C-alpha cells in the first residue's frame, strides 16, 4: 500500500516536471522575443533589466532552465504584466475559491449521481429510469454558458434569491460570512453539477446494469438477502469502480467548467483569472495557472487512484 502510493506520487512528480519543462520550452521557443513575452511591454527600462537579470533571459537556454526551476522551487512564478504583482500571490488568492467550488461540486455530484445511477440502472426501463436518463442526457448536451446565464437570469434577477456574482459580500463577517459564501456558491455549483452529474449517473447506471448480470449477484441472492442489500452492498461497490476511474479522467473537463462558470458568475477563482489573463495576454499568469492546474490534476489523479485501490482489491500493489 505505502509503496503503491509512493510510486504513484513519484510518477506524479515526473509528470509535473515534464509539464513544467514543456511550459518553459513553449515560451522560449516561440519565434518572438522571450524577454518581451515574459516581461511584457509595460515595464520601464530599469524594471525590465532587473527582470531579465532575475530570469537570466540573456543567458544560454540550459542555464535559463535551471534558473527557472530554482524560481519555481522558491514559489516565484514571475510578475503579472497586468496587475504588476507576483503571480504566486494572485494564485494564492484565487486557488482556494476554485478548490472550494470544485471540491463541493465533486462531493455533491458523487453523493447524488452515484445513488441515482445505481437506482436507475437497477430499475432499468421504468418511468423513473427514463426520467433520470433524459435529465442526464440533457446535462451532457447542454450548452454551459446558456445554462449559466439562464440560472443567473431566473434566480439572480427575476427571482433574486441568490447573489449574481462574486464569492462573498464584504459587509459580512463571522458565521454570516460563512452563510454568505455558501449562498454565492449555489448557482455556480448548480451549473457545474448539471454538467458533471450526467457523467456520474450514466456511468454508474451502465455499470450497475452490467454488474447485476454477474454470477456473484446470483450468489448474493441465493444467500437469502433483500434486493436492497444485493444492490447497495454487492452491486454498487463493484459498479463504482469504473465511475471513479472516469472521475479521475474528467479533471480536464473540470478546468473548462471552472473557466466558464467562474466567468459567468464573476467568481474570483483560477478559472476566471485564466479567462482574464487570456484577454490581457498576461503570459506569466497563464504560465503559472498552467503549472498550478497540472499540479491539481496530478494530485486529484493520485487521490482517485487511492480511491480505486480502496474499492478494488484486484489492483496490483507491486
Amino acid at each position, binding site marked *: 500500500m505505502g509503496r503503491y502510493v509512493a510510486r504513484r506520487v513519484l510518477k506524479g512528480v515526473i509528470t509535473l516536471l515534464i509539464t513544467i519543462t514543456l511550459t518553459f520550452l513553449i515560451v522560449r521557443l516561440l519565434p518572438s522575443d522571450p524577454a518581451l513575452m515574459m516581461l511584457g511591454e509595460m515595464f520601464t527600462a530599469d524594471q525590465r533589466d532587473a527582470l531579465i537579470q532575475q530570469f537570466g533571459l540573456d543567458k544560454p537556454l540550459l542555464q535559463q532552465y535551471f534558473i527557472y526551476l530554482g524560481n519555481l522551487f522558491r514559489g516565484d512564478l514571475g510578475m503579472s504584466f497586468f496587475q504588476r504583482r507576483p503571480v504566486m500571490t494572485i494564485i494564492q488568492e484565487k486557488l482556494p475559491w476554485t478548490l472550494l467550488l470544485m471540491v463541493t461540486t465533486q462531493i455533491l455530484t458523487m453523493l447524488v449521481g452515484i445513488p441515482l445511477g445505481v437506482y436507475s440502472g437497477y430499475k432499468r426501463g421504468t418511468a423513473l429510469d427514463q426520467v433520470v436518463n433524459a435529465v442526464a442526457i440533457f446535462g451532457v448536451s447542454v450548452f454551459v454558458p446558456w445554462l449559466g446565464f439562464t440560472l443567473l437570469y431566473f434566480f439572480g434577477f427575476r427571482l433574486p434569491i441568490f447573489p449574481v456574482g462574486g464569492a462573498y459580500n464584504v459587509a459580512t463577517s463571522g458565521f454570516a460570512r460563512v452563510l454568505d459564501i455558501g449562498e454565492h456558491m449555489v448557482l455556480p455549483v448548480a451549473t457545474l453539477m448539471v454538467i458533471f452529474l450526467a457523467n456520474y449517473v450514466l456511468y454508474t447506471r451502465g455499470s450497475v446494469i452490467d454488474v447485476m448480470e*454477474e*454470477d*456473484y449477484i*446470483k*450468489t*448474493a*441472492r*441465493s*444467500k*437469502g*438477502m*433483500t*434486493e436492497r442489500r444485493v444492490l447497495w452492498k*454487492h452491486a454498487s*461497490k*463493484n459498479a463504482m*469502480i469504473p465511475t471513479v476511474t472516469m472521475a479521475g479522467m474528467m479533471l480536464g473537463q473540470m478546468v473548462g467548467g471552472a473557466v466558464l462558470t467562474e466567468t459567468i458568475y464573476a467568481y474570483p477563482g483560477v478559472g476566471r483569472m485564466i479567462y482574464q489573463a487570456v484577454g490581457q495576454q498576461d503570459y506569466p499568469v497563464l504560465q503559472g495557472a498552467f503549472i498550478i492546474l497540472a499540479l491539481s490534476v496530478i494530485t486529484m489523479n493520485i487521490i482517485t487512484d487511492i480511491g480505486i485501490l480502496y*474499492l*478494488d*482489491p*484486484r489492483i496490483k500493489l507491486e
Partner: protein
Amino acid sequence: MPEPILSIRNLSVGFRDTETKEVINVLRDVSIDVPADHILGIVGESGCGKSVTMHTVMGLLPRTAVVTAGQIRYDNRDLLGLNPVQMNEYRGKEIAMIFQEPMTSLNPVYRVGDQIAEMLELHQDISHKDALAEAVRKLELVSIPSPEKVAEQYPHELSGGMRQRVMIAIAMACDPKILIADEPTTALDVTIQAQILALMKALKEKMHSSIILITHDLGVVAEMADEVVVMYAGDVVEKALVVNLFREPSHPYTTGLLKSLPMLHSSDERLYNIVGTVPSPRNFPEACRFAPRCEFVHDRCLVERPRLVRIAPDHEVACWLRVAQGAA
C-alpha cells in the same frame, strides 16, 4: 422411497419474449422429489432446463421468467407462493446453492471471511466478530489449509478449486437441509473435480443434508448419486435409482447418453453421439420432445405426449415404447 423434504410438483416455466411478449414454454410438468439425506443427480444435455428448474426453487429466475403452473413444496409450504421476505427464511438457510463458475461466483471486492460471515449474519443472531471467527471454522470444515489467512484474502488470490471450496463453505454455513450444486466441477481440473465431489459427499454424510447435483457427467452420477432424474428439453424423461438406471436404461435418450459415455467404449475409437442437438425452446415439439432425435420414433410420439409411468419400483419413464409395460 422415504417422504420427500422437497417436492417439485408439475412445474411449468416459460420466458417472456421481450419483443413479442409471448411466453415461450421451457419446463413442462416437471416433478422431482428429494428425500432427506439423499443425493439426487439431474442429468441432461445443455439447454434441457436443469438450471431453470433449480433457479425456480431458489427464487433466482430473471424477471422475464413466468411460472405458469406447479408447486414447490418444502416444509409444508409452497415456496412459489412466498413473498421475498418469507422466501429469504429458506434461501441460504434451508436450501443453499453453489454454481458452475467458482471464478466469478464470489464477490471480488469483499474478503472471503466476510462473504462467509455474511451468510451467518443473515440467518443467525450473531455479531460480526463472532461470525468472522465462525467463518474460519467453516473454511476448516471444507479442508482449506491455513483458514485464518484465507479468510483475510480476496477471491482473486485463490485458485478455482479453492474458490469452489469457499462457495461450499458459504453454502453449508447455516447447515442447510439441501445443497443444490449446479455443475459444481465443470470448470475445474479433473483432479480438483474429484476432490470437490469427495468433499461434498463427506459433508453430506456428516450433516445428513441432501444434495441435488446437476451434471453432464453420468460418471459423476454413478459415483455420487442415490437417484437420477434425466431431463430432456424441459421434460423429465426418466427417474430411477442409480443402480436401476445403469442396469436398465429405459428412455432412448438415457440409452443414448449412456452409450456416449467414454468409459463404456474404451475399446472403440469413436464415441457414440445422439444425432442432432437440443432445439431452442421456441422449437420444442408439442408431443414427445425427443421424437425428432429418436431412433424408435413412431406415429404416436408425434401426436400424443408421453407421461411418466412407473415401470418398476423406483423407476419411472416417459416414453411410448414403455407404456405397455407401465400399464401392465
